[in-house]
């Protein structure tokens, strides 16, 4: 194994998936952050992945997080006149975060992360076996 671009590939994927895990954590954590003003409500975030050549070998595709995009779904309007943050009409606005969809995304991200850790470990073992050749 020459300059080991396989580690760059698996590493970039682990990084991308961990960004995804962080944004999901942030979305779930803020699912109940209500506001009295629809413009100030938390918006769900989602990373955008793109395949990009790794430094060791430009023809080999690693993953790059191009940007973290904010959802443009309209906030949920709830009538809660007793709420301390309610506006003059008695409405509060909650972020349009779907906890079920977020959990599905969370499972997918953690599975992908695990798969790439396995790739990383296999590549490491093979590289060590190659280095120890003839000993």
């Amino acid at each position: 194994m020459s300059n080991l671009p396989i580690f760059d590939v698996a590493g970039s994927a682990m990084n991308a998936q961990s960004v995804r895990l962080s944004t999901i954590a942030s979305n779930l954590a803020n699912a109940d952050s209500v506001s009295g003003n629809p413009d100030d409500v938390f918006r769900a975030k989602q990373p955008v992945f793109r395949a990009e050549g790794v430094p060791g070998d430009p023809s080999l595709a690693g993953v790059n997080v191009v940007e973290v995009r904010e959802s443009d779904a309209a906030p949920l309007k709830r009538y809660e006149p007793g709420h301390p943050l309610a506006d003059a009409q008695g409405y509060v606005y909650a972020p349009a975060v779907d906890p079920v969809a977020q959990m599905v995304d969370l499972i997918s991200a953690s599975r992908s992360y695990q798969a790439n850790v396995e790739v990383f470990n296999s590549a490491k073992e093979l590289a060590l076996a190659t280095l120890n050749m003839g000993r």
Partner: protein
Amino acid sequence: MSDFLGIHGTALALREQRLQLLSANMANADTPGFQAQDLDFTSALQAALQPNAAAGDAIDGAVQGARFARPSSQPSLDGNTVDGEREHALFAQAALEYRASLNFVESKVRTMLTAITGQ
């Protein structure tokens, strides 16, 4: 030295290239529009073993020629053609094949060492 290792030195290098492609597939399992790549090992090996292949570029040239986009059995809506489980299985198999090639090279090296040291 490459004559002495015979087919196995080239095979080892090509198997490493295939592992890289498969790892890139698994890395891009969630990238929209990513096309899963694979290496046709037989034709890559044949191309790399051509006597007229340039010495340094033989492996790279053979890999470029034998790369192909592998269609998915279950295409996803975002155009990604990586099959998670299949990729897992292929990677495990490719890692085993790498070890097999490594064993062949290693036994060749051991034979040579025995011949040199006479023990």
